[in-house]
């Protein structure tokens, strides 16, 4: 029973939602557009004509390439460490009962709920107290600290959705715990691990606040942009930001296709035994 009033309401809701998504994309359009701006002088605030020259020379600004490479390296190293540590913590939290489990879960969650400026300031204070020189190493320490919780939560959700009976079946069939972990648990966790890695990498490469406090002389991509913001951000920054976004979109489509194929394959294999609950 849909009255004209209901239709009007749904229509307004649709328009509002479309507007909200548009709002989210406004700066993205600007970033992409101004990567093609033929700007004269330092500033890239007004449109002065179309050019491809920034795209053919994406690192044509001093220090940008170095910062970009540092960011990629930092994010990669952070992701490896945080995912390994995080998978272990998630396994312990979900698959085992031990004393202090609730407290540990709380400690994992807290950094996610702490304002970034507090994370950055506290860590800087601690490094100053210890007399540690700040640079790439302190950045890795900081990035692992604030990404770990995201990994644990992503993996934990995946583990909780998994059927423990498969692992039990493996052990009933004589597999030891290590074999079960390697042959059953980790392969089933793979999509979760992929998602956690992507999330971790994205958070690390984008971090400004905590890095701002703990970078020392090291310059990451966000720190470079922030430093440049005072004198005008070069269009090459827009080029790199656009390229990174395209890369993420590509990854997402690949992941989607991969998941669809996996789902189809699984349906074919598993259908005769729906009791396994996959």
């Amino acid at each position, binding site marked *: 029973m849909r009255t004209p009033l209901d239709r009007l*309401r749904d229509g307004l809701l649709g328009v509002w939602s479309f507007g909200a998504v548009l709002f989210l994309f406004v700066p993205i359009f600007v970033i992409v557009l101004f990567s093609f701006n033929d700007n004269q002088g330092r500033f890239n*605030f007004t449109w002065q004509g179309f050019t491809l020259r920034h795209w053919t020379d994406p690192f044509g600004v001093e220090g940008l390439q170095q910062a970009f490479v540092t960011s990629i390296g930092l994010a990669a190293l952070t992701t490896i460490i945080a995912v390994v540590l995080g998978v272990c913590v998630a396994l*312990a939290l979900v698959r085992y009962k031990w004393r202090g489990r609730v407290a540990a879960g709380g400690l994992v969650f807290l950094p996610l709920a702490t304002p970034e*400026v507090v994370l950055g300031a*506290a860590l800087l204070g601690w490094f100053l107290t210890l007399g540690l020189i700040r640079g790439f190493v302190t950045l890795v320490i900081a990035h692992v600290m604030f990404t770990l919780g995201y990994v644990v939560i992503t993996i934990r959700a995946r583990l909780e959705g998994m059927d423990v009976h498969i692992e039990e079946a493996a052990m*009933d069939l*004589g597999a030891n*715990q290590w074999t079960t972990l390697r042959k059953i648990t980790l392969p089933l966790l793979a999509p979760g691990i992929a998602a956690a890695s992507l999330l971790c990498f994205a958070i690390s490469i984008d971090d400004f606040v905590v890095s701002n406090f703990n970078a020392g002389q090291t310059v990451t991509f966000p720190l470079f942009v922030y430093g440049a913001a005072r004198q005008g951000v070069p269009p090459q920054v827009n080029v790199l930001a*656009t390229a990174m976004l395209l890369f993420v979109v590509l990854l*997402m489509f690949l992941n989607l296709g991969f998941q669809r194929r996996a789902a189809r394959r699984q349906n074919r294999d598993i259908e005769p035994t729906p009791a396994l609950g996959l």
Partner: protein
Amino acid sequence: MSLGGEAAAPRGQAGGWLTLRRRKSLLPLALVLPGLLWLIIFYAVPILSQLWISLQTGNPDDGFAQTWNWAIYADSISEYSEQMLRSLQYAGTATIACFIIGFPLAYFIAFKAGRWRNLFLLLVVLPFFTSLIVRTVAWQTILTDDSWITNALKTIGLVPEDGRLLATSFAVIAGITYNFLPFMVLPLYASLERMDRTLVEAATDLYASRWTAFRRITLPLAGPGIFAGVLLTFIPAIGDYINAQLLGTSQQYMIGNVIQSQYLVVREYPTAAALSFIMMLVVLVIIAVAARFIGTKRLSEAAVA
């Protein structure tokens, strides 16, 4: 692992896992220890060390010594009360704006988007895969004095002829709203999507109006999501200083700007530590209250929903 014990144990998961657990009681500790130590050494201890640093006196050149200077707390609160209040006010306004923009969007995605649902969810998170700083600089471009949008708003009279958008509290609050909108939309969507829609049908079948059904069924069931969304927006927004830095002036500075400049520019470490310790305490109180209502697990899941 010998199979003898397993085979003899009664079937079912409790028995199997119990023996396993007893035999391998050290395994979970070995798994959890590296990650947990990392968080203790580089999160918990640093947060507590803020208290220690805040009570020191001295200067960056001659060094700082512990003098148990508790007066720093009263001093920094009275000196920076303006920025503290402004942080609460900006974060609160931005949270409300996020809710007003985000709730209809989450509702639309959950119930009306049909087969486009995943696409819409993707569109909500996609912009956040570009760098936060680059996006905020893009807002500078959009709101700057001679920009297209500023001129359009001047033409229709929403902005006075000599007025500006950039470097106002409007720009800072709009920037914060933009930055944290997905943190509001995703938990709202998660709680709406989980909801049993037949309850709304039952209510309308029983002659409740659409509005009554929304007010009495949908809103209460979305409660945990609203709660999580408000927290996930409000808490990081209090500490934000990028928006005030890039879209505002010192007239719009928030407490995060003060902590940043006290630590990195003025190097007045005790004041900076005191301010960040106070912020942590405020956040802990908010989280403790929230955890009583909806539980930490749900809150943390909502964070990455």
